[in-house]
């Protein structure tokens, strides 16, 4: 059983909803990245999504775009990202890590080389925004090395395609709550509840809901019908500009802990 599968099994056994924070690797500070990752876990994260910075994040709104730009300006690349995962693993062997990003950095790094290095560092899965199921053949070396490919499902996903996604999903299925970019608008939980219920009924893996989760209130509403909630832009936006480990850890706590308690009391 993979680390991701084990974690979701444990959540299910205890009847809890998973909390999945997304942070952009290298923001707000490359030096304190590992501290930030541990802080996420201490504040209640069940799984960490680590964004690989990319120059052209087509599916992301301004908050994550800017975090990506800042990280790139600080020279953050795949080597640094994998280095932080390796360092994190010396103290935490249990929290699953999913690298999220776009295909080009991995394509240029080389799929085989990336697969080898990522597994060695302790990465558990990848979520590649611009690699839909139809193009996933290129990820074969990653799967062979044991990395799970997390697939996305969206409100626009046609029923027939949803069946195929559910069949191919590994680890968990990431349900994008609305058609749009990260950090946009606010979601109507009423609309998505029915759709997520439908996906959960078909999928053999847990379903995480992301896009538009901003605070304890929205997280709690989603917890009613999802296996996990992803919090991205709201966290990245809050972390922007934080200086020094204390400020970073403090902000993580401020934003994640209320969400954690809301999820645990829903």
């Amino acid at each position: 059983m993979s680390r991701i599968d084990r974690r979701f099994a444990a959540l299910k056994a205890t009847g809890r909803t998973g909390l999945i924070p997304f942070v952009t690797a290298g923001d707000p500070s490359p030096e304190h990245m590992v501290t930030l990752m541990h802080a996420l876990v201490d504040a209640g994260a069940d799984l960490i999504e680590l964004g690989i910075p990319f120059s052209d994040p087509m599916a992301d709104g301004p908050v994550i775009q800017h975090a990506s730009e800042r990280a790139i300006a600080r020279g953050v690349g795949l080597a640094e990202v994998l280095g932080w995962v390796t360092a994190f693993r010396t103290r935490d062997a249990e929290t699953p890590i999913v690298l999220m990003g776009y295909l080009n950095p991995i394509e240029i790094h080389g799929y085989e080389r990336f697969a080898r290095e990522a597994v060695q560092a302790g990465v558990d899965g990848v979520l590649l925004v611009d690699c839909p199921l139809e193009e996933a053949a290129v990820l074969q070396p990653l799967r062979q090395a044991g990395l799970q490919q997390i697939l996305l499902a969206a409100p626009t996903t046609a029923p027939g395609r949803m069946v195929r996604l559910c069949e191919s999903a590994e680890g968990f299925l990431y349900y994008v709550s609305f058609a749009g970019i990260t950090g946009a608008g606010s979601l109507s939980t009423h609309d998505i509840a029915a759709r997520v219920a439908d996906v959960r009924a078909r999928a053999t893996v847990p379903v995480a809901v992301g896009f538009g989760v901003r605070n304890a209130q929205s997280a709690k509403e989603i917890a009613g019908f999802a296996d996990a909630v992803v919090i991205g832009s709201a966290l990245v936006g809050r972390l922007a500009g934080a200086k020094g480990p204390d400020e970073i850890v403090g902000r993580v706590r401020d934003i994640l802990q209320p969400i954690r308690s809301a999820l645990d009391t829903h």
Partner: protein
Amino acid sequence: MSSTQDFQRWPDAHGRFGDFGGQYVAETLMAPLAELTEAYERLRDDPAFIAELDRDLKHYVGRPSPIYHAERLSQHIGGARILLKREDLNHTGAHKINNTVGQALVAKRMGKPRIIAETGAGQHGVASATVAARLGLKCVVYMGAVDIERQKINVYRMKLLGAEVVPVTSGSKTLKDALNEAMRDWVTNVADTFYIIGTVAGPHPYPMMVRDFNAIVGREARAQMLEEYGRLPDVLTACVGGGSNAIGLFHAFLNDAQVRIVGAEGGGEGIASGHHAASLAAGRPGVLHGNRTYVLCDDNGQIAETHSISAGLDYPGVGPEHAYLKDAGRAEYVGVSDEEAMEAFHLLARTEGILAALESSHAVAQAMKLARELPSDGMVLCNLSGRGDKDVHTIAACEGVEV
């Protein structure tokens, strides 16, 4: 290269041209792309659609465009005859209108009331605003803040045509970022919005559809050559930004093995300087804007900031069909520098009385090089993709002149 190979058969059912192309997009866009592919494949064989498109191309765009023998330019160079396919004479002044007329008709038939577009030089933005005005559709054009500055005249033209021009300030603030922003708009407004991509890039079906709409250039040119000159040209050349005017000219000739094909990319300050936009001549295979193609990027896979004096060539990717043609050995791609393009611009102006777009001036510069290598009965057919009015300010600034 084997003469039995059919270079015109691409893309395959997955939208791939050999190893290139495809649909590398977020899940949310898979459904609208499927809807578009389905609609386009139906319409491209629909006699009523074809008739309407032909009518528009003739009466609105002003097709066919002539092939003009640039005699004084040819004499000046010494060598082969340089022939210009005059896309600059189209309505709105470039080949871009061939594509926007076609896509706007698709949008209309799909019942989409809102059009979005990205633009670099502003020619595609103008061409989109134009067809939107004509069909009564709302039009929003994304344009990099840097390009807005260097293509002011086109920005104003778009506004006169009723379009909203949205400045893009992310990344390098040029064409690639405008494309990102247009994609973000599309993903947010998929229900009522049609995205008119301006070149043969983006996810399938765009590289195929945009090529099909521009392929009229090569079909006309091939027939005109046979009729007026009794044979095909020895070599074709066109400038390559995303590659739409180039593939438009090349496509009809791909299986004419005796015709050499050369694309001219934005060589900027020279390939060795690193300041250029020559994705095919100096890039590597990667994934950008929904397709696998040649890209300019660093070892971390970050897309490079390109440089070309012409906004329309300032793009770090290129249409996947060109990537395929390069790897298949059917076409060659070379960088033409800013300086060479400027020289060609002036020479064409003074010998022929034609102010070419800076993009097209790269093709003219390449045509001059090719003509020098050929005997006097040789023929070089060059796509003059657009006229230069929009570039007058840039050129004046380069010469230190105030207008």
